[in-house]
């Protein structure tokens, strides 16, 4: 999966909006949405929320975890722990990016949130790199990584597996070479 695909999946996440129009339930393949009452919060998928927001048809309510205090706690926790900590949403990065890009006016302290999420992300990516490094160094056969989000996996997953593949090939081709050499001698 590449980032775009993950983002596409993330757009199915439900977020709360306050519409400023009135519309009866709409029936979509993915499920029914609405009814939309002006002034009344309603849960819709992210893609619709962004679409409505762009047309100024709604006000977005940030997810509960998108709060400076909670994110600070989360970041500190992430930094303290050796392993990956569970994230408030499996699509936290995508949600943050999309919401902050399109509806930053509805999110209090948007800049701080952006920084916090970025910090968390960086911490996690560093952890991922470190663990990949140790994984390769120690030539482990398998490793367990909990609480990784798909976006994080997509950043290194494809590259890592390919790299491991090549390394394996190199290693296996190295051995016969050794043996042939020894035979030659």
């Amino acid at each position, binding site marked *: 999966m590449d980032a775009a695909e993950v983002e596409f999946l993330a757009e199915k996440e439900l977020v709360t909006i306050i519409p400023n129009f009135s519309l009866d339930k709409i029936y979509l393949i993915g499920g029914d949405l609405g009814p939309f009452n*002006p002034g009344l919060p309603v849960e819709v998928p992210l893609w619709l929320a962004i679409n409505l927001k762009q047309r100024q048809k709604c006000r977005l309510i940030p997810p509960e975890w998108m709060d400076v205090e909670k994110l600070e706690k989360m970041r500190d926790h992430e930094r303290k722990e050796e392993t990956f900590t569970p994230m408030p949403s499996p699509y936290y990065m995508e949600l943050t990016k999309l919401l902050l890009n399109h509806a930053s006016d509805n999110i209090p302290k948007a800049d701080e949130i952006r920084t916090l999420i970025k910090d968390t992300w960086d911490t996690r990516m560093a952890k991922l790199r470190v663990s990949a490094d140790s994984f390769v160094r120690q030539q482990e056969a398998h490793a367990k990584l909990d609480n990784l989000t798909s976006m994080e996996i997509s950043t290194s997953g494809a590259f890592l597996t390919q790299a491991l593949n090549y390394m394996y090939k190199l290693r296996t081709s190295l051995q016969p070479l050794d043996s042939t050499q020894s035979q030659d001698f």
Partner: protein
Amino acid sequence: MDSSQQKTFRGHDAPVLSLSFDPKDVFLASASCDGSVRVWQISDQTCAISWPLLQKCNDVINAKSICRLAWQPKSGKLLAVPVEKSVKLYRRETWSNQFDLSDNFISQTLNIVTWSPCGQYLAAGSINGLIIVWNVETKDCLERVKHEKGYAICGLAWHPTCGQIAYTDAEGNLGLLENVCDPSGKKSSSKVSSRVEKDYNDLFDGDDASNADDILNDNAAKTPSFSKGIINDGEDDDDLMPASSRPRQRSHILEDDENSVDITLLKSGSSLLKEEEDDDQADNIHSLPLVSSQRPFYDGPMPTPRQKPFQSGSTPLHLTHRFMVWNSIGIIRCYNDEQDNAIDVEFHDTSIHHATHLSNTLNYTVADLSHEAILLACESTDELTSKLHCLHFSSWDSSKEWIVDMPQNEDIEAICLGQGWAAAATGALLLRLFTIGGVQKEVFSLPGPVVSMAGHGEQLFIVYHRGTGFDGDQCLGVQLLELGRKKKQILRGDPLPLTRKSYLTWVGFSAEGTPCYVDSEGIVRMLNRGLGNTWTPVCDTREHCKGKSDHYWVVGVHENPQQLRCIPCKGSRFPPTLPRPAVAILAFKLPYCQTATEKGQMEEQFWRSVIFHNYLDYLAKNGYEYEESTKNQAIREQQELLMKMLALSCKLEREFRCVELADLMTQNAVNLAIKYASRSRKLILAQRLSELAMEKAAELAATQEEEEEEQEEDFRKKLNAGYYNTPSEWSQPRLRNQVEEEAEDSGEADEVEEKPEIHKHSEIHFQGQNPFSKSANSSDVSTIKSGAVISSNQGRANPFKVSANSKEPAISVNTGRSTNILDNMNKLPKKSTALNRAASNDKSPVIKPLIPKPKSKQTSAASYFQKRTSQADKTDEVKEENPKNLSSETPALSPQNTENQRPKTGFQMWLEENRSNILSDNPDFSDEADIIKEGMLRFRALSAEERKAWTDKAKGGAASDGAEAKKRKRPVDENNETERTESQKEKAKENQNLPKKRKPLDLSTNQKLSAFAFKQE
């Protein structure tokens, strides 16, 4: 004494708590944390005496009492020291403990003592807020006053001349006690048995009319904000006026309590007449019982300050950023800071109008918002009068604003908008109506000062002060007017019920137009138009709050869907404007008992559903449009709940309750209930229910007959034309003939003897409006497609079938208006059978085959019939036939035992013959159901003659045993066959092998249904 001279007194081992100079400047008394109280000679700084009186402590902060001691003024003869719960008095020079002053009411350590300037009285304050005054000579307690909030008294000071004591408490409040001890009443007041409460002013208030004003002024001037009644102003007259009447009164108290009471009452009553402010009238009445119960001082309810007028959905006026309105249309915010005084209007639905920004030069304080307009009003200022400003944005002309000036000295206190009108309530107790375009309409007087108003459509909802409330309660009244073409008053100044000690916080209409309001305790109440315009609490918002100081700020009520829209406010009663609060939705919950149980839950749901659909009736009555489907849905929901409750009560063996529940049901639901009862073999219940059903039908018919008398003729004709048989209330005479004809038509010699019997039964059903026929009908309708079944029955069970079909129009005629309901309810049977099935499955281990009680059953059957037949005017014949029926029934022990032994219907016979064909055509058919289905299709494909032939064959083959029973069972059984799954069929087949003793039950349709129920096993 030379001020420059310093003296140091050494001796205390811990911080000094208090000091007191001897008035003669010889001694100095001190109290210290080391627990000692010492007296020092000022001249040589030696310690004259030391008493270890107090508890030791290490610091002033930790000292239990600050021990403010005091010398007697003037002579300095006595030194008073507050020690724990008493005041110790020491004689000068000898330093002997002269005596102690104490009182039973002192429950906590005394903090402070003070002498009156005259030296006669001693006041002491305790750490729990008690102030006590003694007469030192007599050692009598004169006054006991408890601080309202029980804060520690930390300072006391006597008025130099009057009997007043100023006090301070540890929370920083300053208070004043008035007329603490009147010189002449010393003796008597010692006899005052009870605690002297602070609020007897109401009784004695205005004893002297000339003083009344003073008292009031005193009240106004001196009452500190925190304590309503700590001032005993009622008695201060005594100090000021020549003591004549009061002392006598006091002595009366001594001699004869009753007498004194009389006098007091008389006096206060007469003085009231003179008094201008007669608020206290009610108060006096309240105080009566208290007074007569030997409490000479008024200790009754205190009047509550009236709540100020408010706009629903607004936050307090003093805020710089506040909501003027938040309702279902939009939000009006008001900014009033240094830079800007402006009003922001925002609509939830931007399609109504775009957001607007107004400058608030006139300083508008109240506002309302509707689909059509924005209404603003301001109070009058020195130069300007109060103004009503309307922004009629939906106007089609170009001038969208109008302003109306109120007359001088008339301030607008509350405003509201309806559809096409605006209303303003003013301080002059006037309600002014305007059209939305600005035309002045009616003006009328309000019965009291307005609290709040709300408008919706044509309805205007006014809440006003009916009078003065007491003990924290508000005394509100409500008016509900309809300002449509027919102007009328729905609620004529009824009292508005509020939670105790609460005030009104929100007034409005639900989106559907039912008046609602919320009080400060968070209880939402709604007008129950179905119960004589009473108010029902529908939600307790405090239940949903997490913290004690959290509140929900209501912004709207919706009945369909049931939503209470409100804003959760953490730690406050109202939300701030920023960050922008989000609306939450609360569910309604009626305060029914035992909602943890299933029963309570369903009862709550049922009544909630009833209350929340009252608006439909209102809309219908007032000629508004509404969706019929909503109503049908509501009725279905209610009936389903009733059925569930019935099932539950049935399970709990509460049969009486079942009947009560059935009484609430509609006709169709009652039929289902009967079905359910007979299935769960509660035959007595079933019988009762069917009686009930008949009563209901009769009632319904009675009411409908009047309405539809004229149409009846037409209907009859139509029905007769359309249907072969038209059994109904109005065609009884014809029925017999038709039945006979029919019997002849069927032309079956061997059955002829039994036929009339059947018909009679069916007649009975018809005439009595027997619900069974209808229940059969409803299941018929649901399976009407099974043509094969019907056709196979044609020859024999014809009367039933006809009754079933013809019944339906009859019903729809009867119930006229409720046709839709019935149509709708036809869907119900399926659901409820599922429910019933589930229920009976649950029960199956419990239910044993009925223990036969033939006698009682026969008698009950007989009585059952008698009842019917008496109505049907056919008593004789049926009576004759009853025994016959019974006897003919008894041999057929279990109808369905025989049922499956040999094919009885044409279809079944045909199926037997053709089974091999079907199987060979469809080798993959392993399921019996599939075979039957396929068979049915094929059978249906046969021509009518062929089918008839099969049916005849079947009839020929059918033995006479229980033929009758079968016949009557047929419609149901056949339906079952179509409805049921294979597994059930097999079960039934297994059943036939089981030796089962089953007695025939009633001959009535009960039997049919019980057989149906048996088959369930």
